[in-house]
């Protein structure tokens, strides 16, 4: 019997391998931010931050923080040579205008139609959508990053989201700590799985319909 153990690092590692040199990428707050740590050395991606920055660099050394230079999560960051600053209208012009290749977002629920819910649990918790609705609408490829199961054991990959939607049929790829999924024609296609999980285990522990792709293979991150 396989026991599920949360593994956010595997999610971040696998997503980081999706990008190729030159891609413009926006990483959401939380788990998606981790992705930046695992981009292969021979790949140069350009990180966009919706608060007004392209060419996002690593966190500064302690004591080197600049109060005027943060990411969209208000954490101190740096800018790489060749980066640029802009106002919020231009920032979302970049995003909505299709100039961002990949956006990686966290999840409350994501369903097999490509719907995503991540900004509101009515009556309980309402953080707000921030830039997530524009990011999912505007980016070329939308990647949802999530642990596969809730703490309760419930599946995060739904047949149909029940919470208010952030994005309608916009999600292309979902990476969890058990596998890599593409959403196509209203179904999840399992492309890769993280051992020790198996395709059968994944189908059993997922609420949504899973199709195991013919070329489905284990993932080595």
């Amino acid at each position, binding site marked *: 019997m396989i026991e599920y153990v949360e593994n956010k690092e595997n999610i971040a590692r696998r997503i980081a391998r999706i990008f190729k040199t030159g891609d413009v990428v926006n990483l959401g707050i939380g788990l998606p931010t981790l992705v930046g740590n695992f981009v292969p050395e021979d790949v140069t991606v350009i990180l966009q*931050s*919706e*608060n*007004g*920055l392209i060419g996002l660099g690593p966190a500064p050394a302690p004591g080197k923080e*600049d*109060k*005027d*230079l*943060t*990411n*969209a*999560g*208000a954490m101190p960051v740096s*800018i790489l040579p060749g980066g640029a*600053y*802009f*106002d*919020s*209208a231009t*920032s*979302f012009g970049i*995003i*909505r205008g299709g100039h961002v290749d990949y956006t990686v977002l966290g999840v409350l629920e994501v369903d097999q139609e490509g719907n995503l819910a991540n*900004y*509101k649990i009515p*009556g309980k*918790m*309402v*953080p*707000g*959508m*921030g*830039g*997530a*609705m*524009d990011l999912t*609408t*505007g980016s070329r490829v939308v990647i949802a990053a999530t642990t596969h199961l809730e703490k309760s054991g419930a599946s995060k990959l739904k047949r149909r989201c029940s919470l*208010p*939607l*952030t*994005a*309608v*049929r916009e999600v292309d790829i979902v990476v969890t700590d058990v596998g890599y999924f593409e959403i196509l024609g209203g179904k999840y296609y399992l492309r890769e799985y993280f051992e020790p999980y198996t395709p059968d285990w994944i189908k059993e522990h997922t609420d949504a319909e899973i199709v195991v792709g013919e070329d489905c293979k284990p993932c080595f991150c």
Partner: protein
Amino acid sequence: MITKPIISAAEAAAMVKTGQVVQVGGFLGCGSPDSVLGALVTAGINNLVLVCNDTSVLDEKKQRSNGVADLIKAAAFSKVIVSHIGTNPETQRQMNAGELEVVLVPQGTLAERIRAAGCGLGGILTPTGVGTEVEQGKQKLLVADRVWLLEEALPGDVGLIKARKADKAGNLVYSKTARNFNPLMAMACKLVIAEVEELVEIGEIDPDHVHTPSIFVDYLVMSREGSKS
């Protein structure tokens, strides 16, 4: 060139009247006019409508707050129009208690609605929010084979903004990601008060480096030493 009056944060706060729509720059406190906001807390203003990216950061345990967070805590607003309230639990508490009306707007839509007001546009057509709760009560239009939401311009009575530097004419230069909504709000508000860290002579800013031209700015306030932002 005309010079702009330099006033104190308290004088700036006194120009804000109950019931007004106040647009405040900053993104989770980065680039917000903290000296003026502090003076508004002191003045005990209330019943304002806030337009801001977010309600900033309030962490009671760490006794940390910035941007508009202390004004939220002081119950200065009857309504907030923002994209995010997740870092200020007091906003959520007031909302749940029925003390505060919270209108959530996608961040890119908020930016365009403010810009539209400043640019004399009635609104813009955005794809953002179609099929979500955001579309409720809004007109949907089919243009170029796609469905768009009509989002209306969002003007303000008073714009409280923050810049790194001004010349005495009121030309503004922002610093890094502290720019965010500030230049948009400078265009969209009837009265614009810019808090700045440094004041230079007219002619010292290269006209190709100006982010907000002087004609948008009515008053200048010097940031007090050691203010949070």
